[in-house]
């Protein structure tokens, strides 16, 4: 077990390294720089600026310096948001993004498993079909349609919830982003659960549980459900990636001060360090979640060997 975790970590670190390297050089191939504006800067000033941010050094040297900084936890200064380091920007945004993402994940797991189980228990009934149609709707209606529509209906017309903004992280401000982010995940999780549940309900151990006279709810919840949702664990990594992608849209539409919006704005403004910083944070999150998923999978399914 320990050896397995160690080996996965040994794979995870090079993965992060490659991601940082790719992102670093891809950003630099892009034409333009952080100091391009409406008016061209006088060459002397531009040279000074570049020297101040160490952009005049050869690219390999800049790269090594950046890596060295990362190892010490130094993400460098932001080129565009003056007087802020990237670490400071990320530290202010990350709690917001995490609160939004974690809430959406919990919501998605709860409703996804619930709907999927209901669908499987009433397989091919009207309830099953409507649940699965809802699931497909969840996949096909993109976040950037549901977000403004819900914001308009509940925020403006009904006035039940704030239409946008952070409001110091109050519950009301979080509900709509949670719902919007979790809808596509609910769709996928409910489909996965339904498939797993149908398979589990047909298996021998469920027949045994029924044969020995256990009431149906116990059979479903205690015996079938754990087997049915085990495959969900390996969906954790992709789910996290989906949440991060969705956060770009949701943070923009609901005007939330998370780190998703830094990415697009930063890439457009050639704020190299900020973009790289966000990539590092996101990639770390995904790598860590994949690792947790692998470990959990082994704990839940004893047939999986840590090799």
């Amino acid at each position, binding site marked *: 077990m320990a050896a397995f975790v160690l080996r996965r970590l040994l*794979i995870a670190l090079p993965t992060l390294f490659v991601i940082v390297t790719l992102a670093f050089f891809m*950003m630099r191939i892009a034409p333009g720089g952080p100091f391009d504006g409406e008016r061209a800067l006088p060459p002397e000033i531009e040279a000074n600026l570049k020297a101040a941010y160490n952009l005049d050094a050869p690219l390999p040297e800049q790269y090594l310096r950046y890596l060295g900084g990362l190892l010490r936890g130094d993400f460098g200064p932001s080129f565009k948001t003056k007087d802020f380091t990237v670490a400071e920007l990320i530290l202010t945004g990350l709690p917001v993004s995490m609160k939004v993402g974690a809430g959406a994940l919990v919501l998605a797991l709860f409703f996804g498993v619930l709907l999927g189980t209901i669908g499987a228990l009433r397989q091919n009934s009207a309830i099953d079909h409507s649940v699965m149609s809802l699931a*497909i709707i969840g996949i096909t*209606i*993109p976040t950037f349609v549901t977000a403004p529509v819900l914001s308009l209906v509940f925020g403006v017309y009904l006035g039940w919830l704030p239409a946008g903004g952070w409001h110091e992280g109050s519950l009301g401000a979080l509900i709509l982003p949670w719902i919007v982010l979790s809808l596509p995940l609910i769709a996928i999780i409910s489909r996965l659960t339904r498939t797993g549940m149908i398979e589990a309900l047909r298996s021998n151990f469920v027949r045994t549980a029924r044969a020995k006279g256990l009431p149906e709810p116990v059979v479903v919840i205690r015996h079938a459900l754990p087997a049915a949702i085990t495959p969900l664990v390996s969906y954790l990594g992709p789910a996290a990636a989906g949440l991060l992608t969705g956060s770009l849209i949701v943070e923009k539409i609901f005007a939330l001060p998370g780190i998703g919006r830094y990415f697009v704005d930063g*890439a457009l403004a*050639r704020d190299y360090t900020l973009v790289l910083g966000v990539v590092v944070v996101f990639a770390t999150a995904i790598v860590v979640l994949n690792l947790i998923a692998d470990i959990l999978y082994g704990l839940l399914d004893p047939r999986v060997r840590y090799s």
Partner: protein
Amino acid sequence: MSTLETPGGGRGRLIEEAARVRGRSLWDDARARLLANKAALSSLIVLGIIAILALFAPLLSPYGYDEVMFDRITIPPDFSRAHWFGTDGLGRDLFVRTLHGARVSLAVGVVATLVSLVIGVAYGATAGFIGGRVDELMMRVVDVLYALPFIFFVIILVVIFGKNFILLFVAIGAVEWLTMARIVRGQTISLKEREFIEAARASGVGTFAIIRTHILPNLLGPVVVYVTLTIPQVILAESFLSFLGLGIQEPLTSWGVLISEGAINMETAPWMLAFPAAFMAITLFCFNFIGDGLRDAIDPKTR
């Protein structure tokens, strides 16, 4: 040969009977099952209608997709003036723009998926066929790329290459090939070891014939299913980028661009959001049903 002789009617009748029985290949079966699937069949029809509408868009309305009419700004659906979906903030006919958006979105979906298909099949088949160290290394690369949320990759690519229409196809396709590579590799490896391949080889079938008659049909099933599921993902990805202002540029349009404009004007002109969003949702809906139907049809075990 002589074993075909049977007491009652003899060889001639057997051959005659065999000629009357129409052989059914794997694909005939699959097609029959697909056409029997009502959801998939109606999805195919609806998708066909949307594609035809998109193709003949210029013939269906008197207006051009970039024709600005300042006396007709943001009017709701109006049948008397042939603005069936209303107009947008620049007085452009939304019906024509939605169908032109369909052209772009469908084209991006198909072309980018083809790019991902070519890269993914070549990469996955190579890794699966060579095996060993090479396979391990190649798949490790895929694992690494998987860990990067793909949309970030595309955003960086778009920033590098500029907001270029064709490069957008390639960029999305170049990122979407990962799952395809995994599927193809897995299939190739499992097929290589299967008994029927061994049997074919033992009975003297040539390598090329084995690939053509045994490996390819088995590879094709999962690939076709995944292609139909990739197209909607790509359409979503494109609209996502366009929504962020990184995709298709004016006056060209796509569903993403139209939805983005519609979301801004949602309160005053709800039709600007409703029509493009409905078209896109219906299209994605259809692709998903067709993909599910294909999977059931090609591999009935998974039902």
